């Protein structure tokens, strides 16, 4: 009896420790990014790091301004958002409200399939199909552009947007819809006058999480945006994002060098952006309860 009590006590403590593990890992990630990344501010001020216009990490002396990378990320994300938000929300409305049950199941499976495709496979497909298409359509010297990246990233954001927006639409109380119907509204009037406003905070969260996914995406972006670390003048030129910079350059950076520290500092920037997006989206998600 006593032994069993001790055993259960131990197990329950272990469960508590594992329950706290996610907090532990979030803190650990931040600490290790900070430990390596903050050293860069010995050589460059935080202001010059964030707003410096040139990124030449291996020239002598190194120029470590990440503004072109921030612009690159923003441009690609902005393009992806413009494509994926209307299509994603419309698809969520179609699945939640209009599609017959059988078709609904097929569509949902299709969306899950898209979410499951590894980003490197999407990047590869983008390289062999989309990039040549962009090149010939817009008559460009190269198809590796911000636009190509935006299109592929839009497809990576859509599953997130569709599934969360769909949940938000489902969680609108049935009585709202019945009330609108009883007042003589058509199905479409009910959708855009009643359901969409009622689900709006969930849809905002869906859009934010979709955008979060886009900003953090690495491989597909690195494969199809051309990786030119200059401030882009249009969406039809090569750009380099924050994520792609880390992925492409960390392999060559010497551990403990300025370049190495700078890449970790870029990681801190990404971590903070994703932290803000996720916390805000979480607040929106819990607003409706």
């Amino acid at each position: 009896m006593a032994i069993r009590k001790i055993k259960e006590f131990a197990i329950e403590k272990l469960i508590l420790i594992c329950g706290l593990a996610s907090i532990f890992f979030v803190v650990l990630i931040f600490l290790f990014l900070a430990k390596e990344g903050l050293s860069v501010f010995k050589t460059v001020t935080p202001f010059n790091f964030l707003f410096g216009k040139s990124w030449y990490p291996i020239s002598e002396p190194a120029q470590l301004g990440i503004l072109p990378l921030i612009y690159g990320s923003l441009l690609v994300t902005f393009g992806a958002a413009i494509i994926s938000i209307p299509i994603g929300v419309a698809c969520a409305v179609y699945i939640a409200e209009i599609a017959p049950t059988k078709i609904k199941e097929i569509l949902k499976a299709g969306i899950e399939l898209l979410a499951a495709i590894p980003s490197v496979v999407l990047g590869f497909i983008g390289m062999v199909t989309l990039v040549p298409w962009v090149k010939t359509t817009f008559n460009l010297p190269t198809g590796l552009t911000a636009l190509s990246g935006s299109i592929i990233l839009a497809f990576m954001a859509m599953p997130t947007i569709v599934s969360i927006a769909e949940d938000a639409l489902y969680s609108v109380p049935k009585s709202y819809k019945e009330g609108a119907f009883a007042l003589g509204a058509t199905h479409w009037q009910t959708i855009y006058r009643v359901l969409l406003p009622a689900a709006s905070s969930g849809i905002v969260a869906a859009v934010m999480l979709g955008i979060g996914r886009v900003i953090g995406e690495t491989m597909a972006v690195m494969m199809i945006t051309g990786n030119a670390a200059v401030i882009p003048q249009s969406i039809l030129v090569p750009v380099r994002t924050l994520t792609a910079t880390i992925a492409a350059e960390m392999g060559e950076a010497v551990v403990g060098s300025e370049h190495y520290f700078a890449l970790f500092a870029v990681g801190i920037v990404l971590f903070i952006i994703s932290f803000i997006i996720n916390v805000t989206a979480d607040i929106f998600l819990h607003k409706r309860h």
Partner: protein
Amino acid sequence: MRNTRRSQKIAFFFLFLATLLIVIPVGLIVVIIFQKGLPAINWQFLSDMPRQGMRAGGIYPAIIGTLYLVLGAIVFALPIGLLAAIYLSEYAKDNLLNRIIKLAIVNLSGVPSVVYGLFGLALFVVFLKFGASILSGSLTLGIMILPIIITTSREALESVPQSFREVSLSLGASKWQTIRHIVLPNAIPGVLTGTILGLGRAAGETAPILFTVAAFYLPQLPKSIFDQAMALPYHLYVISTQVPNVDEKVRYGTALVLLTLVLFMNLVAIIIRYNFRKKKKW
């Protein structure tokens, strides 16, 4: 009246169009990869070492490397994730701590994959001196899939009816006995679904393994968990962007093997979930 009917028709047509805009490209992607990749697939491709600077031969070490990594990730993440889910569903009270844990999980699932790569490099490769190895890569991937496992397991545990627990407790079972013998067995299909989805995610991710384990070209099998290894997603990245003049067939073949592996795992997860919902007794 006729006007509102017509605007409804037009609106629904556009909603349908938007849906097609997502579904058709997805179908096309899968069809293209299968069509162009299948001719490359044969026993030699799956079981041979890469040759001529990865332009010929097979992808065997990349397949094996990915299997090791995925296995290592799950060995690390499943126990922690399952126990964390038990804590959240059975023990946690609705207080600030619980809220912080949930927020941490949300954040963990939102951290960009390349940041996991940085973290793995700083902690496992450099600080703990594991070097670029299967161990470092597995642990990095394990932490990355932790939120998936916690969230799905927790949903599975919470869907077990409260009355099951009450009956067990009223028969004199302790809390842990109730969890171990009543709640867990009824939640296993859900836990399994989450685990397999986590496996699929770990198998397809590239950025977290870039600096923690992945070898550019290593035509031999890893001998221990402290060895570097090739991995399928990184191999696909390498032969599509870093190595010139690779036969297109080899690229599509590699993409096909990776896609099949990931989709197969997702399919298994969907089937388990479907059967479980059908058989559910409550």
